[in-house]
């Protein structure tokens, strides 16, 4: 499917979708509450068939926190970037997609570890890379640690 | 062949007489024992050190490198440096471990190998004890070493060592059978269990030649099984580096660890010399019945050279195995023994018995 068809299809499925400008590829901004639904549809519908989650990254845009999903379909070879964001820095949370793409389990743990974004219904949400007793979320822009981090 | 210039019997007799004539019999025998003890102690240490050095060099050459070459000429003092270092290294005692057994384990391992050395025939007359059940005795004491390994693994209170010990227990006892049965093939051929008798029976040809096919099969099985029994080569599951870090001796440090290390090499020496004795004629020179000229020439090579030459040959084979093959998994290891070696061995023995019955071996 071409990007335009995809666009059509996606806006058919869920409301409140935005398509931000992007030079390289199609990008969708999903409202947090329909993330799970869209993900399931994208994965299960034969025409879209996004079965391969390439990467799942957390981003701190200072104004808001976001999670970016890079998706590809191994059969149709099309590519999609899905994004959710939240303004809530204290207690951000999204739905997990780890039942849809298994690889997401660790990616989500990593995002939780680095940004403090929680994922509902995640089977094993612990810190992944840092020690369990680590304080703070290192990849956030406002993370400071005078002792362990020498800044330049 | 009544006359042999390299017969050590007269020499030992002479020592015996000299001692007996000058003192009381009890004292004489004690002094004799002390002399023998010192000789063997020295022998044991030297063989152990040399073997460790040899293995390093052999594996180095196989792997396209030099191996130790900076300590002394060609690095021959390398193992001595290791020895000094290990002697001067701290002995760690583990909390919650059974210290008595922890310290006992190296004793058992070393004692088992010493007991075996007692019966090895190095040359004519150069044998501490010539049992009339010689080979059976060797078979018996070789089964003792595993107890040391089991104790070491259990008493270190570490998971790795326990798994290593249990593995090696299952492995060693299984392969024990194949070792015994493959030796039995030669016993059937020779009709005796006395080591000197077996060697004498090879005066006109080694059993591996005289016994042709079944002896060859027995030899191969013996090589495989004895490699496994000494926890070496592709069968080093008990100390599998990549799985159990150091296996049953994970917690041992310093000289205690060195003894496990040493025992491995001494056991290798022992099984190699058993193989040399049983299949390759021991100290008996290479003889072909009828070719008197060549036989006479062969006689001029001292038997001790023959013995060590053959032993070294077998040792090289074992090193070659070790540095070529990947390690087996525990279930495959036991499969190999119970489903392949043991049935083959039993068949082989029946074959040997049949051949002996029909007299189809080279006489």
């Amino acid at each position: 499917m071409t990007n335009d068809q995809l666009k059509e299809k996606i806006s058919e499925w869920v409301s409140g979708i935005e398509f931000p400008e992007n030079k390289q590829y199609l990008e969708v901004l999903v409202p947090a509450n329909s993330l799970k639904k869209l993900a399931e549809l994208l994965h299960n519908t034969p025409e879209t068939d996004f079965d391969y989650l390439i990467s799942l990254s957390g981003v701190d845009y200072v104004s808001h926190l976001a999670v970016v999903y890079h998706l590809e379909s191994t059969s149709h070879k099309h590519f999609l970037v899905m994004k959710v964001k939240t303004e809530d820095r204290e207690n951000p949370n999204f739905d997990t997609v780890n039942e849809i793409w298994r690889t997401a389990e660790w990616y989500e743990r990593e995002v939780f570890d680095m940004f403090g974004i929680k994922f509902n219904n995640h089977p094993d949400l612990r810190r992944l890379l840092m020690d369990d007793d680590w304080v703070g979320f290192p990849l956030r822009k406002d993370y400071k640690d005078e002792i362990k981090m020498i800044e330049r | 062949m009544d006359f042999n210039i390299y017969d050590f019997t007269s020499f030992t007799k002479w020592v015996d007489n000299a001692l007996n004539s000058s003192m009381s019999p009890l004292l004489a025998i004690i002094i004799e024992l002390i002399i023998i003890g010192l000789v063997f102690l020295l022998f044991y240490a030297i063989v152990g050190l040399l073997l460790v050095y040899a293995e390093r060099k052999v594996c180095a050459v196989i792997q396209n490198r030099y191996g130790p070459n900076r300590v002394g000429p060609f690095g021959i003092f390398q193992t001595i440096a290791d020895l000094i270092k290990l002697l001067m290294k701290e002995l760690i005692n583990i909390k919650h471990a059974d210290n008595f057994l922890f310290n006992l384990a190296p004793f058992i391992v070393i004692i088992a190998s010493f007991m075996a050395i007692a019966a090895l025939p190095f040359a004519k007359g150069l044998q501490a004890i010539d049992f009339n059940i010689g080979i059976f005795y060797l078979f018996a004491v070789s089964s003792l070493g595993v107890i040391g390994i089991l104790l070491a693994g259990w008493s270190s209170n570490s998971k790795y060592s326990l798994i290593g010990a249990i593995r090696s227990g299952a492995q060693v006892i299984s392969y024990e059978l194949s070792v015994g049965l493959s030796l039995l093939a030669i016993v059937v051929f020779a009709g005796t269990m006395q080591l000197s008798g077996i060697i004498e029976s090879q005066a006109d040809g080694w059993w591996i030649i005289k016994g042709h096919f079944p002896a060859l099969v027995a030899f191969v099985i013996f090589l495989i099984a004895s490699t496994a029994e000494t926890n070496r080569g592709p069968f080093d599951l008990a100390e599998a580096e990549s799985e159990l870090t150091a296996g049953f001796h994970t917690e041992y440090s310093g000289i205690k660890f060195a003894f496990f290390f040493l025992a491995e090499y001494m056991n290798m020496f022992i099984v190699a010399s058993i193989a040399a004795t049983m299949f390759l004629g021991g100290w008996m020179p290479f003889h072909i019945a009828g070719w008197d000229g060549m036989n006479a020439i062969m006689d001029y090579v001292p038997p001790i050279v023959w013995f060590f030459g053959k032993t070294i040959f077998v040792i090289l084979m074992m090193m070659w195995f070790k540095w070529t093959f990947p390690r087996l998994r525990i279930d495959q290891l036991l499969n190999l023994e119970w489903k392949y070696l043991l049935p083959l061995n039993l068949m082989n023995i029946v074959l040997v018995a049949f051949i002996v019955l029909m007299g189809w071996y080279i006489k």
Partner: protein
Amino acid sequence: MGLNQLMFFFLSGLILVFSILTVTSRKILRAAVYLLTVLLATSGLYFLLNYEFMAAIQITLYAGGIVVLIIFSILLTSHISHKFERPALANVIAASLTGLAGSFISIWSIMKFPFNASTEPTLDVNMKEIGMQLMSTGHQGYALPFEVISILLLAALISAVIIAKKGN
């Protein structure tokens, strides 16, 4: 004192001390190791008696077989920190009284009994002789026991396999 006596006292000393330790030790693996020492010393006695084949069998089967099996099962069933309870005092007293009385009576009767050592010529026990008698079918032949033992072992093997498999 001759060398023979020296050896005998050394070996029997080992046997006595370690057999007592075997039953009194509260750590099970140590008990097994003490038992091993007893068995090895016994085989030393056999060597002293010049029954070399028996001695080697003692080492192979008892030390290398049964004790290994025992140690093996200990490895699988007990933890290193495990220690036996001290047995009840009454139990100990009763047992040791039995033992003492029994051994006293037996030793007394042994000392009493006039053993007259045989004057017959000693048979040179070599393997040939043992093998001949074991395999021969005639008078003083043990061929039948030889075969029967194989059946006994077959039975042992089958039952052990059945028992072990049943646990699964």
